[in-house]
Every structure is written in C-alpha cells, then in structure tokens.
C-alpha cells in the first residue's frame, strides 16, 4: 500500500455557494460524512487531514509577502486528507466519490514520495 494526498480544490465563490441553504448544507455535510466513513471502513483512511483557511500569505523571494493565494489562483486548496491505496489508479478511483466534485471543485491526487532506497 502506498500513501496519497488528496488536495481539495475549489474557487472561493464555489466554496461559499456550496453552503447554500441550511438544508443543503446539511445534505452536503452528510455526503462528506458518508464518504469519509466509507474510506475509513474500507481501510483507506490514513489521516483525515485538516481544512485550511481560504486566505493567508504568499511568501516569494527575499521580501515579497502578499495576501493570497486568491490573487493568482483560480481555485484554492481548502484542505487535505491522506489515504492509502494500492496504486494511483485506485487512489483516483477512491476519490471519485468525493462530494466536492458535485459542487464544482476538484480533488488533486498526489503520491507521497517514497524513500525506498
């Protein structure tokens, strides 16, 4: 089994919109709970990860510190989760149930680099 990181990406506007009405927020919440519980039940959930605030600072070069990342990014990483999967194909397959996809967001699946020397 190898580890993969899911990076949840969404535009700030879509993030706001995903909230919708209280009833739709509840539905969205339930879909996420179900998806996470499912990953866990099948033994793929390594680390639930953390949600990230929508905006922070971007540091570049020696001095440049700007507000961001929204100024330049169409979509922003809203959080991450670490899963365990056989290979990247399985990790991709497992991500297909992620509720963020229905809300116009995306999941970036990145293998954790192995130090197998």
């Amino acid at each position, binding site marked *: 089994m190898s580890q993969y990181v899911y990076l949840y990406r969404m535009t700030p506007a879509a*993030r*706001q919109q*995903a*909230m*919708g*009405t*209280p*009833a*739709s*927020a*509840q539905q*969205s*919440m*339930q879909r*996420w*709970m179900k998806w*996470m519980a499912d990953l866990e039940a099948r033994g793929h959930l390594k680390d*639930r*990860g*953390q*949600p990230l605030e929508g905006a922070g600072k971007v540091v570049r070069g020696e001095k440049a510190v700007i507000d961001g990342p929204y100024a330049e990014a169409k979509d922003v990483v*809203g*959080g991450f*989760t670490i899963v365990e999967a056989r290979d990247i194909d399985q990790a991709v397959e497992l991500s297909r149930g992620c*509720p963020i996809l229905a809300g116009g967001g995306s999941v970036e699946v990145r293998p954790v680099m192995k130090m197998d020397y």
Partner: protein
Amino acid sequence: MELSEHLFRREHGRLVAALTRIFGIHNLALAEDVVQDAFCRALEIWKVRGVPDNPAAWLMTVARNRALDIVRRERTARTFAPELARALESEWTLAPTVDEAFATSTIRDEQLRMMFSCCHPRLAEEVQIALILNILCGFGAAEIASAFLIGRAAVEKRIVRGKKILAGAKRLFELTDAEFGQRLAVVQRALYLLFNEGYHSASTSTPVRADLCAEAIRLTALLLETPGTAQPNTWALGALMCLHAARLPARVDASGELSPLAEQDRTRWDAGLVEQGRAWLECGATGSVVSSYHLEAAIAAVHASADSVERTDWAAIVRLYDSMMTEAPSPVVALNRAIAIGQRDGPERGLHALREISNADRLCRYPFYPAALGEFELRRGNVEAARAHFAMAASLARNPSERRFLGRRLRECGNIAHGSDVESRDPEDRLARARHGDSRLQP
C-alpha cells in the same frame, strides 16, 4: 457522531434570534451573514475532522465569537440593539451581555418576539408565512417555492418585502405590548395556515409536507412553553396539528398519491402524536371560550378514536360542525357538515344537506363540492350523475395531485358502470382538505 436531523435549519432560527437580540432587528441581514459564516466554517471543518460531540454548541460558540468581534470592531460606526447599547459599549459588560443573548431562555423569548414581529398586520398572510419559514425555520426561497408550487421569484419578493418592514421597526415586538392579544391571534392563524400548507401541500413530496407540519408544531410548542402565549386556544391549535399530523404517514400512498381517509391504513397513524394531541386538547379545555381550533381538534380526536370510517362517531362530528356553523360559519364548514350528515344518515340525507347550503354559489369554483355530490350519488347507485359531478370536480382541480385524485374517482365511476362493485368510500379526507380551502373562499 451523527448529525441530528435538520440541525442546520433549526440552529439557523435560534442563532438569528440570538444575534438579532445583540445587533438589533435593523441589522437582520448582518445576523444572517454571521450565521451563514458559522455554517460555512462548520462545513469546512466537520467534513474533514468529523462532527463534534455537541454540534449545536459548536455553532453557537462560533456565532458568539464572531458577534463579539463585530461589536468591538464596529461599535463606533454602527448602532446595535438600542436596548443593549450601553452594555455593548463597555468591555466590562460586553461579553456577559453577548453570552446572555445566547442563553436558552433568551433564545426562546427572542424567537417568540421574532415570530410576533413576522406577523406584522401590515404584512399579508403569505408574506408572514414566508418570513417565518425563512427566518425561524431556515428554509431558503427555492425550498419554500417548491413546497408551495409557486415561483421562486415570487417567494423572494415576499421575503424581501417582509424583511424591509421588519428591519424598519425600531425593535422586535414586545410580548408585554398592549396589542399582544390581537397579535397572538394573527400568530396562531399564521401557524395554522403554515400547518395546512404542509398537510394539504400541493407538493407530492412527503418529506416536504412532513417538514412544514413539524415546523408548525415546533413553533406552536414554543408558544406553549411561555405562560402568556400558552392560552387555551393555543393548546387547541397544537392539538389539532398533532391529531392531523398523526395521519400523515398514511395519507400519501407509496406512489405519492393522496389516499382518502377510508383507504388509509390506520395502524400507520402515529400513536405518539395522537396521544400528544389528546393531552394538549385536555390542557386547552379550560376557560369559557370554545374556539374554532377547539372544534377542529375535537373533530380530529373523534377520527383518531375510530378504527374505521364505519365505526366513527359521525353523530358527534355533526354536532361539532353544528357548533362551528354558529362560531365561524363558512360555506366550506357547511360542506363538511353536509358530508358528515351523509355519513351519519346515508347518502340521500347527505345530498339534501349539500343542496341546502344557502351560499353554495361561493363553492362553485371549489372542486370538493361537486366531488361530495359525486360521492353520495355514487353511493346511492346513481353512477351517471356521479360521473358528471366528478368530471366537474376534476375540471376545477387546483393542482396536479388533486387532478390525479379526482380523475381517478371519475375513472372508477366508469369501471362501476361496467359492472364492478360499488365500493363505499368516505369523503372525510376531502373534508379535511376542504377546511384548507376556507381561507381561499373567504375574502
């Protein structure tokens, strides 16, 4: 940790009430933004980290902290609730004042004041109901629109118009106001109509109906928690809601079609709600005034005690309708009374009573008047006449579910004419529906 059902909708109403207490009703939009923000944060964090042990307390803490931030940052630029102005100015009193607004009893009182404010006499009944559903029950415009089968734009207009009037008021309605009694009657009426919207909803979605009914019962229960608003007719109003809501599980069949009282599986009626309805009716049996809510609840209680249409005490129901004709006469009450007479004394007498309704012309656009004529004609074997009445009824249907139901009765007349059995059917369910029409028939 599981999410309790409707957690976000319920907390919306409670948190907006608490925040309005701090910010003032003129800042209703700000209060709603803060709640929206708290929900957004909850969604982001809970979906990754899981739901906390006490999600309602979690949301409340986020809203409270945000309220503190806003007051600190904007107290020089913005005016907040006038009655708290002093307390919010000083750091000594700010946090305790904000905490007090989130206390359980304050939230309950503020929800009541909000409910009374939504029932402003300058607002039309449909605006009052839209406001209550939006602010206190957390329904969005599109959700209200789909429950009532009306356009979303129309609902949005109602909400905007209503909020303008609300925000224009200096403060929320005080329960000690001289107009309290009058306003309570308007609130009761709005909750009654809200319940009916659910019970008779044109929407065929059972969950939508059940949600509206449950909200009406929840808000009525809120009135019953407070001595001033827990008057005998409020108990009766709550009782009639429970006794009717008890039938909801059996009211719509598996395919989403209306199932008339005679065909309902009474074992599916909610025994807990029946019991609560009876207990509340008992609580309302004090004082000397018998309101129309009492009479309606009593009629529903008679039905709830019967295990079939045949073993229903129709004589008692006719007597209750007689009282209603004295208390609050209307063509629809007269129609229901005639139907009950037909159940008690047979179709001939029922038809006679129907034709005797003096102002039947006011029922001429109402599908359940010809439908009742059709039922009784059918029962005395006059299939041709029944068919004509049902055809008329179907042509008057006001929504797809009525159209399908009446169309089905019309087709069944056809089957009977071709030799199948005459099945006795009871129009009592239409009776309940007819009550709903009341408000539409009266100017």
